[in-house]
């Protein structure tokens, strides 16, 4: 750390290097921090969370009971102890609340004045954050599993919607209508994701075990269909041709630079694909437990030197190194299945929501200040620790001697 600082001071290093090193260190030290709490508002499982890209201050969460909550993540109190307060809530009492489970929530990428939510009540709502009223409601024939707004789009404002219907709907925010349908899947579409690199590129994952990459300017068909065997026909059985997984594909995530695509499936596998060529990079992440029948929201870190993947795995969040597939750690804290997690790029924090109604904040531990005097280090540390919290003291009674 000091080396990085001096190198930075001397101008020997790219500023990015220090940043990367430090953020990597912070990601590696993620832990469930007693100092950071998130208000318990949800009375039911949390299906989706999203952190706004503009300020990184507000977090949206959608619950299985249709409730949508907005949290303020910024800590202005100056104390380490902070509880993320719920700023506003679309509660059950609201007239506009989703009737059934909210599956996806997303901020409008350029402004926190608007967000979009989709639900199993076959609607997708575009909300005005100020009034907490839907500005637009898109209705569909089937349950909506997932939707996504392109984070970089400047030439279009399309929302891709995956429903129980194999056809992918494209809704235009400008006109407020469904303008397009992408056909090609044979089963319900569980996840849709726009590329963060090319604004017209869309990836979709379906229960027919296929992942397709579309260019929305060319609606006749998909550009790519990801094949887990990379076209090696000898390995694939006839029906497994052009499949990304051997089960339902329910998770989809681009890396920050958009060069790679990650998919998860109910075959307990996670795969990393080259998004340009559609090639399976064959990174082995081992078994990634995944029993969800719905969309699984997972995320990738940004700005670290080896990037990390945070993927819900049963009741914990597994952290993998992106390109080596090495399991870095398991973040254990939820008491039930974890459904979603979101990485806060600015602070290297991770937020995860699960079926146990909790949203947990995983915060890097601050490095404890090194004590300069070596002489009386041991007793003072013990005392210091004890003074922090009396509960940390050991309580051996003397009669056991």
């Amino acid at each position, binding site marked *: 750390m000091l080396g990085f600082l001096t190198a930075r001071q001397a101008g020997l290093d790219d500023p990015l290097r220090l940043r990367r090193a430090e953020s990597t260190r912070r990601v590696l030290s993620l832990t469930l921090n*007693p100092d950071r709490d998130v208000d318990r508002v949800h009375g039911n499982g949390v299906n989706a969370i999203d952190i706004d890209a503009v300020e990184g201050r507000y977090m949206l969460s959608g619950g299985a009971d249709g409730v949508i909550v907005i949290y303020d993540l910024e800590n202005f109190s100056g104390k380490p102890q902070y509880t993320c307060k719920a700023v506003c809530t679309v509660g059950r009492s609201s007239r506009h609340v989703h009737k059934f489970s909210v599956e996806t929530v997303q901020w409008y990428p350029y402004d926190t004045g608007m967000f979009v939510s989709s639900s199993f009540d076959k609607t997708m709502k575009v909300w005005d954050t100020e009034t907490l009223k839907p500005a637009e409601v898109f209705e569909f024939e089937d349950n909506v599993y997932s939707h996504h707004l392109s984070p970089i789009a400047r030439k279009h404002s399309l929302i891709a919607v995956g429903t129980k219907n194999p056809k992918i709907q494209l809704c235009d925010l400008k006109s407020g209508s469904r303008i397009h349908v992408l056909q090609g899947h044979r089963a319900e579409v569980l996840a849709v994701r726009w590329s963060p690199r090319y604004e017209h590129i869309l990836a979709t994952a379906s229960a027919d075990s296929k992942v397709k990459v579309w260019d929305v300017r060319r609606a006749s068909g998909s550009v790519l269909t990801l094949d887990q065997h990379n076209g090696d026909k000898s390995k694939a059985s006839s029906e497994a041709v052009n499949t990304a997984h051997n089960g339902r594909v329910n998770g989809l995530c681009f890396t920050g630079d958009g060069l790679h695509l990650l998919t998860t499936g109910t075959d307990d596998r996670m795969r990393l694909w080259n998004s340009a060529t559609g090639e399976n990079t064959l990174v082995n992440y081992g078994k990634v437990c995944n029993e969800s029948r719905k969309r699984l929201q997972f995320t990738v870190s940004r700005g670290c030197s080896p990037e990390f993947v945070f993927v819900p795995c049963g009741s914990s969040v597994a952290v993998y190194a992106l390109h080596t597939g090495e399991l870095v750690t398991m973040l254990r*804290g939820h*008491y039930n299945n974890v459904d979603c997690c979101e990485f806060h790029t600015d602070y290297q924090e991770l937020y995860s929501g699960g079926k*146990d109604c909790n949203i947990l904040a995983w915060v890097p531990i601050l490095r404890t200040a090194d004590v300069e005097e070596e002489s009386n280090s041991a007793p003072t540390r013990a005392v210091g620790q004890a003074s922090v919290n009396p*509960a*940390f*003291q*050991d*309580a051996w009674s003397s009669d*056991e001697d």
Partner: protein
Amino acid sequence: MESSQRDRLSVLVEELTTSGQPQLNQDKMKEIKKICKVSNDCLDHVYHSVMSQLSQEHAEVRLSAFQIATELFTRSHHFRMLLVDNFQEFLELTVETDSEQPLPPPKQVARKLRSLAIQTVQSWQASYGTAYKKLALGYHFLKQVKKVDFQDAEARTVAERRRIEERQRRMETIYKERVEAASRDMDESYQEIQSTLTEMESCMSLLLPEFNLTDNLTTSSSPSNIQPADDCPSAGEQPCCSKDVRDDWREGMIQEREEGLEEKKRNPEEKRGKEEKGMTGEKRIHREEIKEKEVKESSEDEIREDNERREEKGKKKTQKGEDKKVQMVTTQREGMEEEEDCEEEEEENSEEEEDADEEDLFIRNSGLISHSYSLDLNISPGLQVKETEDNEAVVSTVIDLHKLIKTKHLPAVHGWVQVFTKSGAEEQLLRRALDLKQSLEAALQKHKELHIDYRTRIRKVMKASSGGEEDSSDDSDDFDEVPEKEGYEPHIPEHLRAEYGLDPSPSTSAFTKNTPAKRPTAPPVSSSSARRLKQLADEVQDPTCAAATLLRLRQNLPPPTDPSCSSSAPSSQQPSSDQKAADAPVVPFGLDLYYWGQEQPNAGKIVKSASQHQFWFHAEGDVEVENKELLAESKSRYISFPGRFIPVSHYCRAPLDNGSLCQRQDRLKCPFHGRVIPRDDEGRPIRQEDQLREERRKREQQPDWRDAELMRDIEAATGEDLGSDRVHKKGKGKKKKFPNLSDVKQTANTARSRLEKKVFNKSTVRRVAQVMSKADGRKHEKFSNQFNYALN
């Protein structure tokens, strides 16, 4: 950390968790704490061993492990860190947060573990919740997601509570219905049961009247001059006939009682003189009994006496003509060996003797002839009702009632009581049911005490109006008087007997004079096969058959008065002729018998014709050929004599593993223990060579280095364990590892599991499958030409 500490900790944790006790052993716990205090490594080790014990599929193990964890949790920060870090798993294993991982059996302990864990988590949350985030999260998870009510003593989740309530409600309605049904039933059958009870009561009182001797005596055929003595049991007139009896047995025993001695010296002659007056033995018995009764003044004896008298009446007739010398072995005599009995009775006797003097006079008047009388008396203890012709109807009613009570009323009442007690019905109903039960049981008990001696029930044969002495009164009232049966012949000529379905008995008189006891067994028949006998027995059962009529007649014939034709005479002669008939071989008729003692004209000659045709060849071509075999066959015959089947009386008697002896009765060779050889009481062979052979065989079963003694020697020399103590225990089943834990598998022994064991038995399944496939195959064979059968 030293390995010794580690080992010690492992041992302690295992001991604590497998103790099966609801509370931990404090000494061991203290030791654990003492070791753990030393370093965090020890805590790590304890933590891991506790967690591994927590994941055992046994609630008792888990409970103990949980208790260890609680003890350490409050002590050590490090342990808290470890445990809270893995709090999900901990909750899954103790509070059952995952419905797919229920707590293991036994259920009772699991419930206790659960409630204890929930309480503990609450207390932890109170004291450490702020410091340990995951603990707080876990607490909130329990509280909000699992909806555990921490105030609830039972510590149940909402769903559980609802389920229990629902079940309770359901049970209540079921119970209500059952109670209603039961009370309705009870109301309906109350009358019936009551009437049954009264009927039973009256039947019993009929069988055992309180004391009405006179009733019985009126029917007795005893001489009238004795009757008064029997009739009035007043002390003054009592003849003391048991005195001589007593004297008799006293002569045999050590004479220690002086009074008795004196008495005896005073009046032996007198008594003997008196008793020669011609009283029958039976009469004396009665008197003696009466005397006893007087002494004891109990009604039971009266009853017994009544019954006995009834029996005696029958006997008297047959024994009258017999010698007057009757063997007398009284119960008193039997009890002589026991001092107490002796003394008691002697006291009685001495009492008797006191009034004996007064009765001397009477005895002299009715003196008896013989000097030494010995009477055979069987006085069974308690009541004894014997079924006779008089009380037959009553007894049969009693039997019916008894059956009714036992099979119908009592089970029903039991059921009601059960229903009422289970459902907590009104006390009144329960009391009523209990009363009923009590009275029914009392009736049964009374019936049991009666010791009714049932005659073997045969199918009731037709009541012939033969005018028997006793049974004419009530039984025949139900039947109309009918004229004599058509074709009824009191005497059937000898040649017609078979035709009538009767045994062709040569001397009818002998059979008719048989005692009733011998009647049911049909007299041996000289030339009739077993089948015929059976047929005959059937006919006797059939009231429409002549044989039955005859039987009935025989039964009702007056007993023989002539001593000369007593039952013994014909029966002794008959067996000899029967014997002969049985011994003679029955051979099929043959040519040799036909020509017995004659020369056979053309024995062994066969007419051989060249052709079988009738008219293409003329008869002259016949050639006679002599056949040696045929000749021999027609002159002699072989009678194979297989000998007689002798049942095997010896046992194999080889010692078995369970300590008993083999009970197989093979003639020569036991399939398990080889040749049957003579063995002593402990199953060892008696003969030397057998012993040697046995020894050899035993040694062959094991290689000689496995010999336990040899191995023990080697072990002692080398100090290494070769497992000498396992040699003989091999295959005897695994010893239970932790004897203190309650057996989880044992609870699986339910009716369902037992049935499952039978039904899903491999061999059963195979058999069933075989049968089914066979049936299928048959169908296939039959209808294979029809396509829909041919296909499957």
